């Protein structure tokens, strides 16, 4: 048995990016959870409250960066797991294209929603 399990090739660029985004996500995800479940309860979230929080430039930028990092980390994770399970050749290229498009769509929609919340579009 191996001593160390990973879906990634250790030391590769994707492996490194997965770890850098993970380190960032620990901090932001914890902040996000506390703010929206313990400071403001999820059940009491209102449009006014969201608009107010998004007015703060730092908060807005943090949320956009959070979205981009999580999308990259999640999609990269799924892709590497599939490659690790033996995905190769044309199917590998198709999966990469589909995942990339899905990730881009997620980020574009998310950024658009964030801009709407900030009242910028």
């Amino acid at each position: 048995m191996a001593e160390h399990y990973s879906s990634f090739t250790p030391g590769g660029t994707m492996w490194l990016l997965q770890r850098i985004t993970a380190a960032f996500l620990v901090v932001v995800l914890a902040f996000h959870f506390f703010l929206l479940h313990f400071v403001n309860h999820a059940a009491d979230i209102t449009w006014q409250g969201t608009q107010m929080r998004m007015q703060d430039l730092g908060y807005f930028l943090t949320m956009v960066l959070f979205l981009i990092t999580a999308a990259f980390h999640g999609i990269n994770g799924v892709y590497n797991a599939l490659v690790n399970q033996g995905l190769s050749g044309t199917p590998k290229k198709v999966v990469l294209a589909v995942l990339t498009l899905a990730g881009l769509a997620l980020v574009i929609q998310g950024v658009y929603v964030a801009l709407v919340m900030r009242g910028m579009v």
Partner: protein
Amino acid sequence: MSQSYNRGLIEDFGRWKEFSAGMWAWIFHKFTGWILIGYLFTHIAVLSSAIAAADGQTIVVGGETVNAYTGTLQGLESLFIVRVMEVGLLAVAVFHILNGCRLLMVDLGIGLEAQDKSFYASLVLTGIIVVASVPTFMQGVGL
């Protein structure tokens, strides 16, 4: 070639009874990661009700006319099943975070001898954090 690649047939999921702690940690990390990215898509879809809200659209929740965003979120939060799923999501997220930190340590070469123990610690801590959060997550919801 690093030893990490030579996992042999042990990854045959039919042989789960033979899996080591590290193998379980890896499987849990996979499942939780996939659930989290799935949730992120759902989350942005729900938050997209902000587009209708900014447009001045309203919906009726419990006989009351409210803003489309407020109504969508509070309508979902008023459902018991949604709260249960949120607690489940919390469990999944907390495990992925704690085990993720454990993986980062392993990669840095810290605590290599304690890998099994730190996996069990991740599980126990996840359990404690989730149980402690249940009252907050369930606040004000009727059956």
